[in-house]
């Protein structure tokens, strides 16, 4: 298993090479002249030249690419073009805000959805089960933008239950601003989560061991609580771990709407400002996080299921 992990980590190098090549090509080759874009519409040719030299865009493309790769290898992402802040500081500043938004909602939704899915499979074929499936599909048929707009309007603007948007840097004052975003994130995740967990648990409910347990006369409730849930936890863990990068990349739209100074909001701002260094740094960071959690998911799978041997 250690050999497998090492091989997987080594495989991340060609993937990262691809990711850097992709982002570099997108922004530096096809993206037009960033210096001109950045200097604004009314800049003179000299001004553009100065900015180009300042941003290091006057070098050849291969030289720029090598510089970009060197930045990644040394974890030195440089500074934002827009705010001149160090990008590493922007990331460490944003991560706390993002996690305080995503982590509680993610945990609550995962636990709630596993139990609802279990009840749904337990009553499969009944109106209750069918109702849950159709409700989930219905919930997923509305744009996430509409949830944010409608709930913000109804509960905050009209109802006055929560502040419309804002942020308190202290941990103690933060929850007041986060309650409504938590609710929205929770609601948004219900549909997809319940359906995934339901499929996973449904697969387990017809395995041989479940039939054996039924044949020896165990109560159906006991089979679900003790046998099926335990076995379904293996695929559930892998699904949950694969979804975990969302915790970091955050919910871009929610952060944007509620003025939460997290990573998602920073990214939208960078996209609007054509802030290439920030976008590139975020892309590479997200790719690394994604690959690490994918690897973790595979390793966990073999750790909790002795039948799976990674070779």
């Amino acid at each position, binding site marked *: 298993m250690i050999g497998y992990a090492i091989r997987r980590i080594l495989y991340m190098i*060609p*993937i990262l090479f*691809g*990711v850097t090549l*992709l*982002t570099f090509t*997108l*922004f530096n080759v*096809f*993206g037009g002249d960033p210096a001109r874009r950045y200097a604004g519409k009314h800049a003179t040719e000299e001004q553009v030249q100065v900015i180009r030299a300042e941003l290091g865009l006057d070098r050849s493309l291969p030289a720029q690419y090598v510089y970009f790769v060197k930045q990644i290898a040394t974890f030195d992402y440089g500074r934002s073009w827009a705010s001149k802040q160090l990008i590493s500081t922007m990331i460490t500043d944003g991560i706390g805000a993002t996690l305080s938004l995503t982590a509680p909602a993610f945990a609550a939704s995962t636990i709630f959805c596993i139990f609802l899915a279990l009840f749904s499979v337990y009553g499969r074929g009944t109106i209750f089960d069918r109702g849950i*499936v*159709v409700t989930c*599909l*219905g919930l*997923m*048929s*509305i*744009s*996430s*933008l*509409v949830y944010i*707009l*409608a709930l913000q*309007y109804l509960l905050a*603007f009209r109802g006055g239950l929560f502040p419309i948007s804002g942020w308190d840097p202290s941990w103690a004052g933060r929850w007041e601003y986060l309650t409504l975003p938590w609710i929205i994130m929770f609601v948004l995740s219900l549909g997809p989560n319940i359906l995934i967990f339901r499929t996973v648990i449904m697969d387990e409910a017809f395995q041989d061991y479940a039939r054996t347990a039924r044949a020896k006369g165990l109560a159906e409730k006991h089979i679900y609580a003790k046998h099926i849930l335990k076995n379904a936890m293996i695929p559930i863990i892998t699904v949950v771990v694969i979804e975990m*990068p969302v915790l970091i*990349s955050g919910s*871009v*739209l929610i952060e944007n709407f509620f003025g939460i100074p997290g990573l998602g909001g920073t*990214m*939208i701002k960078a*996209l*609007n400002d*054509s802030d290439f260094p920030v*976008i590139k740094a*975020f*892309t590479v960071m*997200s*790719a690394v996080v*994604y*690959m690490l959690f994918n690897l973790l998911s595979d390793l966990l799978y073999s750790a909790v299921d002795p039948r799976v041997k990674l070779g």
Partner: protein
Amino acid sequence: MSLASTSSASQSVQQNSLWWDAFRRFKRNKVGVISLFTILVYVLIAIGSATGLLYPHASQGEQYLPMSWQHPFGTDIFGRDILGRAVHGTSTAISIGLLASSLSLIIGVVLGALAGYFGKKVDAAVVWLYTVVDSVPYILLIPALTFVLGRGLINVFIAVGLTSWVTTARLVRGEFMKHKDRDYVLAAHAIGAGDGRKIFGHILPNVAHLAFVQFGLGFVAAIKIEVILSYLGLGVDPSQPSWGLMIDDAKNELARPFFGNLAAATLFMFGLILAFNLFNDALREALDPKMKNK
């Protein structure tokens, strides 16, 4: 030669009955049939608005008129009838869904088929490519692509199509790996079928059910992404009618309070996406070989 023709004839009989079975199962599913009809109604609305039969010209009147018989959802900031905007938005949504998921389906099926069939270096290259694309979160990749390509309907579907083929490729690759050494493929090889014929003539029809379901899922995803892209200012051109732009407009109208845009766009979108979700569900059940004798 005669051997080849008899074998392909019996093959086509087999195929017909397989698809016929699926059709029979689908027909019995009331929810599936109703949702298929709903989708067809939307397609008719889209064709009607694109050809100018429905709401041919945006009549300009007073702005922010409340709901009335003449304007069921009122009028927007430019005095245009909101129902008319939503009807025209249907053709935008359907064309984005159709074109984006067709593009991703073609890329996904071709790359997945080549990787699964040829294996070795081709497989390594395709797996590398889709792992790279998959590693970049779509919320970064799609805006980056539309940012580079520019705004507009065509660029939105290219961006969505180029980024959403990974799951299809992965599934098709897996199926091709399973199928390529099966007896029927070996038999086709024995009578002299080339690689192209084996891939597209023999294996592909046996894994096509996967592609159908993926197409439906891609359709729904593309419509939802368009809404978010339009909100971010990276979607279709502001002069185009689109549900995403209507929801974006609604953001500034809630405080007035005016709900016409939000209500119309949400209702239209809800109907189409729910119908598609239910249709996909019914399709998946009908195509599932495990359900064959039920």
